[in-house]
């Protein structure tokens, strides 16, 4: 049918790398924030809830811009991370991963939170009568029962990452072309045929995860 050029393969690798890394970065934060939002009650909870959902409502370009002025080399947070941990986000591939992690974060928190709400609290009470402390019962009872939520969170995050463009564009280094960026670049210069393979690849890579999301096999368990 069509052959993939080395650039295509690079783009696939970059897209997958960003998707996997951003999901991994977001996961622990996602679990923590979802747990806090689902279980705790404290002053400013709705503010936190709103903040988490901000990337969902803000135009992605604005989110990217906010990330840039927060995590840029000269911005306070960015400078702190660079000086103390050697982590730099602006114009590195890590910046693209950060952008995708933030963009997909609301979806991840929502699905984890929903699955947490469906875990019967009495199971945790049962674990308490069997001598399990807070961390123990969260790890051995609650987390395993949230499995479905993690699958949904991962799939939504992956799909979000594969199609993410504006925020990535702002934070990526030059020449860091994910599939979505390639589609945008070729199409914006009216090379529509050249944009086609990347566009098709995004769809093809997203398809299996979408099927996973819709399949009933794992949901029944």
């Amino acid at each position, binding site marked *: 049918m069509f052959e993939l050029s080395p650039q295509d393969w690079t783009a696939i690798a970059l897209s997958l790398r960003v998707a996997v890394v951003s999901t991994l970065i977001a996961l622990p934060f996602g679990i923590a924030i979802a747990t806090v939002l689902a279980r705790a009650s404290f002053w400013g909870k709705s503010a936190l809830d709103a903040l988490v959902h901000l990337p969902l409502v803000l135009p992605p370009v604005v989110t990217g811009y906010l990330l840039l002025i927060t995590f840029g080399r000269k911005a306070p947070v960015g400078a702190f991370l660079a000086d103390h941990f050697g982590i730099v986000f602006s114009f590195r591939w890590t910046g693209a991963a950060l952008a995708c992690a933030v963009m997909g974060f609301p979806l991840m928190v929502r699905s984890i939170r929903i699955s947490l709400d469906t875990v019967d609290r009495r199971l945790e*009470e049962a674990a308490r*009568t*069997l001598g399990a402390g807070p961390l123990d019962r969260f790890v051995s009872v609650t987390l395993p029962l949230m499995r479905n939520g993690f699958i949904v969170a991962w799939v939504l995050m992956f799909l979000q990452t594969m199609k993410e463009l504006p925020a990535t564009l702002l934070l990526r280094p030059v020449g860091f072309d994910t599939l979505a960026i390639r589609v945008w670049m070729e199409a914006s210069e009216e090379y529509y045929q050249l944009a086609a393979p990347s566009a098709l690849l995004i769809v093809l890579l997203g398809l299996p995860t979408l099927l996973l999301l819709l399949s009933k096999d794992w949901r029944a368990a």
Partner: protein
Amino acid sequence: MKPRPSVMSESNLQPDLYRPASSVLELRGVSCAYDVGRPAVSDIAFAAHEGEILCLLGPSGCGKTTILRAIAGFEPVRSGQIFLSGQLVSSQDQMIPTEDRHVGMVFQEYALFPHLRVQENIAFGLRRLNRSERKMRVQDMLRLVGLESFERRYPHELSGGQQQRVALARALVQHPVLLLLDEPFSNLDPDMAGRMRQELHDLLRRMKTTTILVTHDHDEAFAMADRIAVLNQGRLEQFDTPETIYHMPATPFVADFVGQADFIPGTVSSGMVHTELGEFPDTLGCEDGTSVVVMIRPDDIHLVPARAATSHVLSRQFRGSENIYAVSLPSGQIVHSSQGSTSVYQEGTSVELRVLATHTVLFKQLGAGPT
């Protein structure tokens, strides 16, 4: 620190809080704050001895589950104290977490871990033990509840009765100081519930496990319990043996809740209570002219058909082993009588009533008693 008496030195305890080890559980003036969806309870006091099966009995919303949850450590107490094996576990400013209380609990819907097999569910509380000992304890327990061949199943692959046995095994395998049962038979069909009741009773007796059982079913309480605490609207109405609860109820509520009862009004004069059904000794020692009610159970009233009688049968309810008759007295007062299943009288039959009670229970007024 686990609240086990064997590992505790007496010097840890405040002297005035010390209680002999025979009281596995003691509640002193316990009140729980009102919380949305959970009835409040106030000033609850009772104690359970080693190996005793104690029942918290009352209608829904009476606070029995709140008390059970306070004992388990899920619910804070607003005032009063709860002691487990002589150690203070709950008070206004102290709350030992559930996981350190060493109590076993069987939840109403069993709360089995759906992602774990039967054997893993039972072994959950034994994770501190080494592998071989854990396996041995689980096997022993599986044998005891008759589920040897189901160890590799998941909870959803079991029937309700089997799930309950797993829940019981999971709670008992860790040799808890106290076993808490929250309406354990309410999710089983009546036939199964009856069988499980007997099995559970035998098992608890054999293991000498001190048990607190919550139920709304007085038959269940009578069949299982050594002593019963009857609760109503968050208050303890009576704490006694099943026989005393039935024959000598302390309040009209208890009388009515643990079995059918009629309350006949009467007036005291010279040591006797005069009622429409005859005279009864005044056991309360009231002054002449005091209005009281006499509690009479259907099994204490015998019916004799008599053409000249002024009372007549209103209705008959066939219950298999007995017939329950509603009888209307001349004043319009309705009383109930239990007759043998072969004694069939038509509606409207004129009957004489003979009260055969060996003792009567009097109340000054009906108070909060229903109907």
